[in-house]
């Protein structure tokens, strides 16, 4: 059972979220401010914290950093401000995901599941991964995971689609490892999108195109017949 802590100063949102998430089989505790949140986190273990960024007694950003440092519990930030700057700051402060209010309740459930999968709860192939850094480099390319774009060795910004972004994220977290199509489907799952063999192949070919990787003799994303794909480069932060 997923243990979830909801922190929001609006009582109706707290109760609404609690009732909703419980319908999905989660065990939900609620806190109205930072003090309560610290108490609850000190008293019991949680799998995920859903944290509003504006609280009466503390900045959500500070709390977010505190949780990331003290408990290593994944944090999903909620905000009604919807400022792209706060999204970037929030993710850099150690939040694992970010959702603007008003959100689709089902979207929150999907994000919780995705965050837990990434954190290794849902049987992800990698153990408890440390907070991934915002920018990764490989072969002269820079991959900005917040702006979801690539910067080429010639300093040209190359935008990525969501599918390409999810695929490249899966690759850079597992460089030098062969990933089967099934694994890639699992790793790039997203709410409301159907991911299948064909869409994986399409995203791979688009990524190769954008990375300037020849489809006949790919150097970066190699095809291993019958096994899957291999991202064959050294990735550094």
């Amino acid at each position, binding site marked *: 059972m997923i243990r979830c802590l909801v922190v929001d100063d609006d009582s109706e949102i707290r109760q609404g979220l609690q009732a909703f998430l419980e319908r999905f089989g989660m065990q939900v505790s609620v806190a109205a401010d930072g003090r309560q949140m610290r108490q609850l986190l000190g008293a019991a273990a949680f799998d995920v914290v859903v944290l509003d960024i504006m609280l009466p007694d503390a900045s959500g950003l500070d709390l977010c950093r505190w949780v990331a440092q003290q408990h290593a519990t994944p944090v999903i930030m909620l905000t009604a401000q*919807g400022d792209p700057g706060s999204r970037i700051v929030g993710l850099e402060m150690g939040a694992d995901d970010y959702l603007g*209010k008003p959100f689709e309740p089902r979207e929150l459930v999907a994000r919780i599941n995705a965050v837990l999968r990434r954190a290794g709860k849902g049987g992800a192939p990698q153990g408890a991964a440390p907070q991934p850094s915002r920018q990764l480099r490989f072969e002269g390319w820079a991959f900005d995971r917040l702006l979801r774009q690539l910067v080429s060795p010639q300093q040209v910004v*190359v935008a990525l689609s969501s599918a390409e972004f999810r695929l490249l994220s899966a690759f850079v977290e597992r460089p030098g490892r062969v990933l089967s199509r099934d694994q890639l489907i699992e790793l790039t799952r997203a709410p409301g*999108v159907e991911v299948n063999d064909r869409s994986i192949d399409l995203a791979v070919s688009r990524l190769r195109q954008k990375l300037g990787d020849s489809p006949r003799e790919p150097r970066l994303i190699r095809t291993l017949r019958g096994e899957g794909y291999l991202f064959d480069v050294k990735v550094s932060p």
Partner: protein
Amino acid sequence: MKWLKRCWRDTLFKRLFILLWVTLVGSHFLAFSLVMSQVGRPYGGHDGRHEGGPAREAPSAWSRLLIFPSLPPMGGRADGPPGSPGHAGSGPPPPLTPQGGRPERGLPGWLLALDYGVRMLIIALAAWLGAAWLSRPMRRLSAAAHGLGEALQRDAAPPKLDEDQGTVEVREAAQVFNQMAAQLQQQFKARGLLVAAISHDLRTPLTRMRLRLETLDHEPAAQRCVADIHEMDALIESVLQVFRGAHAGEAMVSMDVLALAQSLADDLAEQGHAVTVEGEPALARAQPTSLRRVLGNLLGNALRYGERAEVTVAVLGDRVLLRIDDQGPGIPEAQLEAVFQPFYRVESSRNRATGGSGLGLYIARDLTLRQGGELLLSNRPEGGLRVELTLRRA
């Protein structure tokens, strides 16, 4: 006492007065001395020693002066030097000395040229220095005014002028400017805070409503309410974008326009929309996040009113052209420009349940102009709207 103090102050007027006075007097004096030193030569007869300069020759020149009073011309010559006799008179006293018995006579041509030349040169030099001296505060002011706009856009501290430097007028202008800049920045900040607060206070109840609607899951009315919540949220987001746009200090970089169009099209296709992209790779100078927003708005419009969008990317000389064609009803010719106004809506779209905030095109054009691009609309002869976005080629 007060009057004396005021006289002592550094005013623009005083600077101008001193500059003109010193220049004119100085030029006359110097020209006069130089010419005198030359005049002294043929009469004095000290060959070979004149290279020592006018200073050494001064005694002889000054002695000559007594019998050679025509410099600066005091009369007799209608075409005297431009310096007025009155000013010359306030210089050295010599020309006022009583004349000897010599008759008035003109100077040799080369001496006249030397006389005029020296005066012109010195006045020109002083005018140049003086103009620079006088205009420096104005230049500082205009530079600060220039920086003010940028600082407000980037939400940085406004430039501050030194209030304790320069003439009284300049100090006053600096004070007024600093006050104005501070006020402007305060208003900008207040506006940003206000919009953020309104958006926060609207979105919190919307979140409550959305959660409440979860308990009435299968009611058709609930579904329509959810759609309304999305629409209101989109409007809030658009309004925020308008205000954020004013602060957008995103850096201009080289960007692959085809890759961007392809990415957005792939995302839309993933959600079941009909978008196609064709063209050649084209690098443009642009702000990545802004350009993404512009394209997102334009593609959203094309799909909302025109069902499907066909995107073409091409390089035209030093520009990159991105064209979006849709198959909708287009826009009446007379309104092609008006649709860029905020909240403007074409009558036919008002009646349809198509949603949209009425800010999409306004934001798109605003952000495009900021990147040095252009955004044009036209109706295609075969039907449908054509949007043409041009950007500077990288």
